[in-house]
């Protein structure tokens, strides 16, 4: 197994890392890749942010103000 992975693998590991513990080789590969890849580092940040945003909604629920029209309007 090579220590070098490409972005496609790194992206997948970043996502899977949110759902399962990565193995030591996987963590090493990812770390080495992130050290040299700005795009994947950006993706990693986006994924952590998404997790945080979902967590916040999970505990606080969705706002209930009378703003439903705005949401539905935009969803269409």
């Amino acid at each position, binding site marked *: 197994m090579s220590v070098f992975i*490409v*972005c*496609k*693998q790194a*992206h*997948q590991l970043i*996502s*899977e890392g*949110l*759902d*399962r513990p990565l193995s030591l080789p996987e963590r090493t590969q990812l770390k080495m890749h992130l050290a040299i*890849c*700005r*795009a*994947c580092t*950006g*993706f990693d*940040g*986006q*994924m952590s*942010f*998404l*997790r*945080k*945003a*979902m*967590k*916040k*909604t*999970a*505990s*606080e*629920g*969705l*706002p*209930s103000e009378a*703003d*439903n029209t*705005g*949401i539905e309007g*935009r*969803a269409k």
Partner: protein
Amino acid sequence: MTSITDLHQQLENLRPGLYRFAQLQLRNECAAEDAVQETLLAVLEKPDSFAGNSSLRTYVTGILKFKIIDHLRSLKKEKPLEIKDDESEDDLIDSLFNANGHVIGTPTVWGAPEATLQEKDFFRVLEVCLENLPAKTARVFMMREWLELETEEICKELDLSTSNLWVVLYRARLRLRECLDLNWFGKVSSGEKI
């Protein structure tokens, strides 16, 4: 100590948000309505259980999650979830990379994450993005992120293999990223945000 009529009123105010929360996950109006109704009844039956340590919304949302899990189970019996329709979308992943597996283009930088999490408008956009996910992908993703179920549990509930589940979650995240990019972060950086 809030009176019971106050509590009634407060719960009534929370109802639309609770309903949307349930509907996003259940994608079934009757089941969502039932889950909310059962939640409100549970709160009203034991009004003293709400200690006031958290906001009422947080407390009620916590109860709603259990009700949603119950309904997901009964929906599964009626209409088993098929993930297949989403599986053909490999191009969603492939389109991000060139033949060598390198990212095509540079992802936008999502600035000021902490400040963004304080913005109500952001969560409205997030909600729309969740709503736009394919129903089955959405259900899996929200079981993971909102109901905070472990992957083994989700696999068991939905008869999915773990590797299949990881891919569905990965795809959901890619879609959400794209949607947030277009509808929130893109606007922020070009100064078009309201």
